[in-house]
């Protein structure tokens, strides 16, 4: 077992956890956090493969993509949070409307 | 085992002890103010000891300066944080949960 293998396995699990979170919670706020967790899983996967391909230094391309990705993910999260807050202020709703079964 | 290694080991062990103390204080103390006390003082001593130990181990003056600056501004930051949180909590009921019990 090598270092990158541990982290890439963890990244798959983290992504799946985030995915499950998106579906099992109705709160907007938690859905946003779940997407952030999924994003963390993806970044971890990238960085762990960068470590595998290291020569004198780790593969810089995934690193650069992850840094770009972090900033983009935060922008998207900020927008999503603002939307959720706006919905909450205007309608008092924090979840999608529940359909009766 | 050289002399510097011995120093590093002693300093790091002492630092770990203080960190453990801070965490136990955070967990065991009864209210926010005493927890603040444990956390923002004891942990900083722990950080200082570990920082000193590693500065000796690394042995480069530039790194030692950086480590010292890190520690200094942590001291500043956490005493500020302690003051602000304590002032925030003052006059509020100390054990009020943030959501109504369901």
């Amino acid at each position, binding site marked *: 077992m090598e*270092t990158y293998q541990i982290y890439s396995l963890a990244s798959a699990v983290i992504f*799946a956890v985030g995915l499950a979170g998106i579906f099992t919670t109705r709160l907007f*706020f938690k859905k946003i956090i779940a997407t952030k967790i999924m994003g963390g899983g993806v970044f971890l996967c990238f960085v762990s493969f960068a470590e595998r391909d290291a020569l004198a230094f*780790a593969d*810089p*391309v995934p690193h650069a993509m992850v840094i770009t990705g972090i*900033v983009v993910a935060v922008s998207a999260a900020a927008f999503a949070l603002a939307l959720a807050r*706006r919905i*909450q202020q205007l309608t008092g709703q924090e979840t999608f409307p529940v359909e009766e079964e | 085992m050289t002399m510097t290694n011995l120093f590093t080991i002693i300093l790091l062990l002492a630092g770990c002890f203080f960190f453990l103390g801070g965490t136990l204080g955070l967990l065991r103390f009864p209210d926010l103010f005493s927890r603040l006390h444990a956390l923002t003082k004891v942990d900083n001593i722990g950080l200082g000891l570990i920082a000193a130990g590693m500065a000796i181990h690394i042995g480069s003056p530039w790194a030692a300066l950086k480590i010292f600056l890190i520690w200094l501004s942590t001291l500043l930051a956490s005493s500020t944080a302690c003051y602000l949180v304590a002032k925030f909590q003052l006059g509020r009921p100390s054990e009020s949960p943030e959501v109504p019990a*369901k």
Partner: protein
Amino acid sequence: MSLWIDSLLAVLAVFLAVRCLLAPTLPQCVFLFFAFGLTLALAWARLGAVDVAIAEAAIAAGFLGVLLIDALRDFSRSRSTGEGGDRPSRVSQGLVGAGVLVFLVVAIEAVWRVPNGGGLTALAADNLPQSGVDHPVTAVLLNYRSYDTWLEVGVVLMALLALFATGGREYFCRPVVRAVDPLLRQVILLFTPVLFLVGAFLLYLGKTEPGGAFQAAVLWGAGGILLHLGGWPVFASMAPWLRHLLLTAGFGFFLLLGFLFMAGGGALFEYPLAQAGLLILVVETLAALSIAAALTAIFAYFNGMSAESAEPFTPASS
């Protein structure tokens, strides 16, 4: 032996992700998420991705944390945060569980057996002398794949514009007047220059060592946020033309430069070898300024929103 650290970090990250999503109240969820971010930052330090670790520490501990704490005030007030309102039916839970489990098996299989193509490390190393900088990650970000970085500056700007679309721009221009503790005022006055200095230091460092435009941008943005919190909404009270100039400088200059050299016969964003280092530094500085401005503006907007929710029916006093 050092695999123990890795295993513990990986298990901790997974555990925190699960606990965070299962947390019955939103504050628990948010603070466990902060811990998750910290664990990831440590994992990146372990994986040798120091740039990513700095970016994550700055974003997760700084910017996103501030946004979440600000938003939490709106949400933790309502009643539906308890466990009761937040459980889907047993059937749909089972379906989701089964689906995710299947996905998990596939994903683990995929990451386990992803072919080792050797990556682009060798290519990046070979071209490093022609990139104008000595740090490979900066070379990738601002030379090899600079259109990524350019568009990314654009994405941050877009997020800000999209924010305006959600509630109108008046939130943003409304500095929240509040009492500031005198000690806090002094501390903010002390810390803000430090943030700007450390940001500039990281920006300069980006040429040779981990650091660079994004990390600097987040630190500068944090400085702007601190000033805003301390009652000096410098960015929100700037002259509009200056504000717009700051926000678009990075994106615009990047584009201008790209087309300039394309007109001269090169590819888009192909810098001439002799000036590459200097050009990259200028582009980085402007991009960092723009991103910092956008982050400050996003926070100012959020803060304006929470002021509204604090006093729903009175117009803002300033």
